[in-house]
């Protein structure tokens, strides 16, 4: 079994809507090549469940008729898949060269201070996580930030804009 410790690996159920999405994804590839749907299927699963627990990955493996290890090795290779629970909103700031030339490091310091948690941790209310990520391909409009699970994108960040984004998300979550 994949070693991801200190997290809840309770059994999960997939909604009918999610299974419909799976069926549409699998139809995009030739007969017998359903494994090609693995990456998009994992994205959809994570969007519904918030992260990928071992039982969730096992269920994906059964659906795609592949071995569980084929799912684990993919989920642990790509950076977008979360193998432990995250905040409801994941703030990802680009930390690569061109964004650092225009102040990305200051933005990350500000977010850490504002949320009061270290990179990768979840705020006490369960709403926020943040982390630095590698180049998001918007170098001319840096610093930039994306917010999962929808991956809405914000360019030319200032600390004021970050404060506003965070308070807007808090208000949205409390409604």
């Amino acid at each position, binding site marked *: 079994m994949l070693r991801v410790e200190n997290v809840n690996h309770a059994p999960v159920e997939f909604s009918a809507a999610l299974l419909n999405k799976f069926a549409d994804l699998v139809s995009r590839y030739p007969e017998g090549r359903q494994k*090609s749907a693995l990456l998009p299927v994992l994205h959809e699963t994570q969007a519904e469940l918030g992260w990928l627990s071992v039982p969730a990955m096992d269920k994906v493996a059964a659906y795609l008729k592949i071995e569980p290890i084929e799912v684990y090795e*993919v989920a642990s290779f790509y950076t977008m898949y979360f193998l432990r629970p995250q905040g409801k909103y994941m703030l990802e700031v680009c930390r690569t*060269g061109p964004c650092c030339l225009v102040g990305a490091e200051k933005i990350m310091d500000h977010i850490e201070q504002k949320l009061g948690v270290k990179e990768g941790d979840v705020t006490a209310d369960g709403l926020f996580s943040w982390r630095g990520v590698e180049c998001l391909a918007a170098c001319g409009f840096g610093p930039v930030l994306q917010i999962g699970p929808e991956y809405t994108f914000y360019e030319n960040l200032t600390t004021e804009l970050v404060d506003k984004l965070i308070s807007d998300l808090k208000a949205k979550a409390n409604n």
Partner: protein
Amino acid sequence: MGRKLLLEHINVPGINTFDVYRSKGGYAAVEKALKTLTPDEVVEEVKKSGLRGRGGAGFPTGMKWSFLAKPEGVPRYLVCNADESEPGTFKDRYLMTHIPHLLIEGMIIASFALGAKTSYIYVRGEMMPQIRILEKAIAEARNAGFLGKNILGTGYDLELYVQPGGGAYICGEETALIESLEGKRGNPRIKPPFPAIAGLYGCPTVVNNVESIAATVPIIRDGGDEYAKIGIGRSTGTKLISASGNLNKPGVYEIELGVPVEEFIYSDEYCGGIANGKRLKAVVAGGSSVPILPANLILKTINNESRLMSYESLSDGGFATGSMMGSGGFIAFDEDQCIVRNTWNFARFYHHESCGQCSPCREGTGWMEKVLHRLEHGHGKLSDMDLLVDVSKKIEGNTICPLGDAAAWPVASAIRHFRDEFEWHVTNPTEAVSRNFGLAHYADPLSKPEEVA
């Protein structure tokens, strides 16, 4: 004003919708290709255009297409590489966001030329908004009869799908991309066989960058010869340049290849000069993996000729005094930037993104990051520079895919051109954490090259 072939209508309101795109002459190239040309004639036009792959390698697109194996009864695939992840490069995101139908139109033309009945656009997973934009554009094109069965009554069938990645720079490498599209880890394959012989599902496959595919639209519309008239020498046509860093007007610019670098940086038509009245210190001209050059060498070649934005001129002088066109990710550094810190940042990026398959890259990128980290944080030694060059040489050329080279070149070139700045970090460790080395002599005029007898 340079000619615009890709971004001509970028500011037209609603150009992201099918109707407006069509009203500006969109999809005329598809009609021309499917109704009046054979697939081989389309390939021939692209060959005549001299178009070179816009993803970074610069390999002639038409030639790549003509290598595609065509065994009877075996499907062929076209895969668009929209896994744009090279630091400094953001042209594909821009193009897909604002004018998605240009890519869809190019995909139909290229798929027709290659005889592909199913094609995929592999978009990096972080670009979820762009994936939604492309899926909407595909639905619009299908409703208008440009995708699906019997397109425009010509008997040609094409299905086009968008595939999201999972967040991995390495999937921009074509065989890693194919692995990822098959639902696996993005580990590059050993070549040969090349994808043109055995690619997706073991079938003949062409992988092309977004911009290369979009460029086939003006090539087919106006003819390959017309396209080849733009540009300079073997650098034909227009190129999207992603300009970032300390510039007055960073952004995506379409240039006619051959524009002088000085004009690109300082003229108001393009970047409008260095921001905040500062002076230029260095430039990475083609995305983070190409060699960094100090200001004096990016503006002029070692022979004191004006350096141009073209494949040949940017690489003039080899790696000793030149760089590369790469993917067109143009990053400008002003006098306040620290080259050591930036080199460490790039080294961390490549360490993070190494797939781990080849030892020289997996281990070497980690060591380069560690050594650069200690240099930047005031714990370096004078022998570290030679150590870094040594590690970079042991990575370069010893890996399955070019990520190893891409990790080695920025480090080796930074030490080649900015060695005194690295040494200053060692000899002045306390000062180096509180202030930067500054411009030094990096923008001084070049001394005349010695005459070769």
